[in-house]
């Protein structure tokens, strides 16, 4: 190949690179036009600069034309994996997916609790062992969602097909009405401002309530850690009169107190942060859900683990309970209270579980949370 042919070879390599990224139907025609323009440019440049065309000149011209992928992209319509039209549907799918994932976590947690032994640590370990399989499911589901939406992006009508676009957006709006509390997705130019979502009042805070919560939590912390013997039932018997019967079992402090301390500590911390910020934010709401999850797990462990209610000899001695009182407590009073406690725990698990679900659904269906300032009732 001669020197002259050498540098022109760069032109052919360039248009070959461009052509590989073009649809077959238009490729030859575009390549021929680009080559024609390249040669015109080279000829004119050589004349203007009064020198023979060479490789330097060719490289300069190709740089002016731009990288092959950029030039090829300019001949094609803008392409997205998931474009602006499909993105709201993608977000909606992710919200639903997230809720399902969280529900699966809960189900896995309940399953591990019911299949494992009494200790909360064992429960957490058992739950942790389910995580790899769970992550694999999450990953493949996520990929499926992206694949389906990417296909939709390609088969949907183009931007200039207004009628089909309107129909598509109306379908989206209909779907979102059943799933999410978000604004109805606007059907291009015919959207209705009256259906815009109200600003959520739940993000307002009551500082008084938060401070009270913090004080109560500190109180609980102090009571259970410093004065556990005073968590007792006041019992009357004609034989020995009024007696405080301590309720917390011997195993309570080791099995549950550290978790309760963690729970209360996190709640205090969260309340303090929210108080300082003046409003709930997306992040603090998620923390709230996380703490609630921990609380529910602790409640469930009360039900499944070592007994919470029982006679602690040290506490009994503190209250000066005689042998008769202790026997009575062990055989009659405390078992009954223990059953009542288990019933209360079950009810609380259901109530808090539903509240948790409502929080998760509410948070995943919301748009951006507008941080509102402190409420006037304060």
């Amino acid at each position, binding site marked *: 190949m001669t020197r002259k042919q050498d540098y022109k070879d760069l032109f052919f390599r360039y248009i070959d690179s461009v052509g590989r990224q073009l649809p077959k139907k238009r490729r030859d025609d575009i390549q021929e036009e*680009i080559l024609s323009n390249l040669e015109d440019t080279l000829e004119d440049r050589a004349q203007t600069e009064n020198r023979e065309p060479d490789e330097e000149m060719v490289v300069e011209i190709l740089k002016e034309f731009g990288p092959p992928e950029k030039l090829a992209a300019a001949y094609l319509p803008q392409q997205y994996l998931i474009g602006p039209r499909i993105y709201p549907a993608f977000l909606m799918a992710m919200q639903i997916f997230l809720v399902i994932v969280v529900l699966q976590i809960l189900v896995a947690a309940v399953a591990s609790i019911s299949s494992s032994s009494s200790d909360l640590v064992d429960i957490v370990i058992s739950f942790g062992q389910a995580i790899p399989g769970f992550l694999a499911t999450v990953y493949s589901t996520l990929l499926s969602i992206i694949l389906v939406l990417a296909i939709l992006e390609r088969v949907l009508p183009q931007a200039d097909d207004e009628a089909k676009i309107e129909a598509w957006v109306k379908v989206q709006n209909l779907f979102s009405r059943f799933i999410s509390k978000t604004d109805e997705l606007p059907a291009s130019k015919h959207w209705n401002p009256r259906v815009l979502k109200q600003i959520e009042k739940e993000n307002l805070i009551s500082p008084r309530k938060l401070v009270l919560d913090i004080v109560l939590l500190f109180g609980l912390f102090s009571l259970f850690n410093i004065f556990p013997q005073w968590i007792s039932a006041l019992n009357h018997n004609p034989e020995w009169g009024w007696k405080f019967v301590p309720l917390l079992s011997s195993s309570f402090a080791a099995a549950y107190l550290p978790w309760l301390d963690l729970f209360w500590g996190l709640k205090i911390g969260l309340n303090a942060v929210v108080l300082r910020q003046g409003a709930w934010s997306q992040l603090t709401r998620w923390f709230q859900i996380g703490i609630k999850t921990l609380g529910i797990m602790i409640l469930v462990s009360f039900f499944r683990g070592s007994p919470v209610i029982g006679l602690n000899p040290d506490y009994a001695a503190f209250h000066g309970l005689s042998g008769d009182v202790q026997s009575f407590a062990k055989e009659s009073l405390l078992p009954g209270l223990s059953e009542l406690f288990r019933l209360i725990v079950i009810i609380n698990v259901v109530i808090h579980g539903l509240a948790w679900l409502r929080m998760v659904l509410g948070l995943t269906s919301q748009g951006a949370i507008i941080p509102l300032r402190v409420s006037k009732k304060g």
Partner: protein
Amino acid sequence: MMTEKQNQLDSLTLELRRGVVIIAVLSQLDEEQYGYSLVKLMASKGFEVDQGTLYPLLRRLEEKGLLQSEWRVEGSRPRRYYVISPQGKEILTALKDEWDALVQVMEGVL
């Protein structure tokens, strides 16, 4: 700092020019031009346009029916010649009116 400022200016200038390149191109195609001759013609009138921008634009305008084209062999080389279509002429007239109105508005704004 200066480089950042210059980059910002370059980017915004590009946005500004992008808005007028179509009307500029249509206005120069009353007579047939091929790709490179159009580049030179516009450059001679002070409107520099990237070849990598212009050639795809000519195709897009043709797809929209604003231009017509045909291949012709002149000398040693085949060239694709473009000329404004009747529909393109109507659009150009309307765009020129829009441009005049915009220029008046901007004179008031700036």
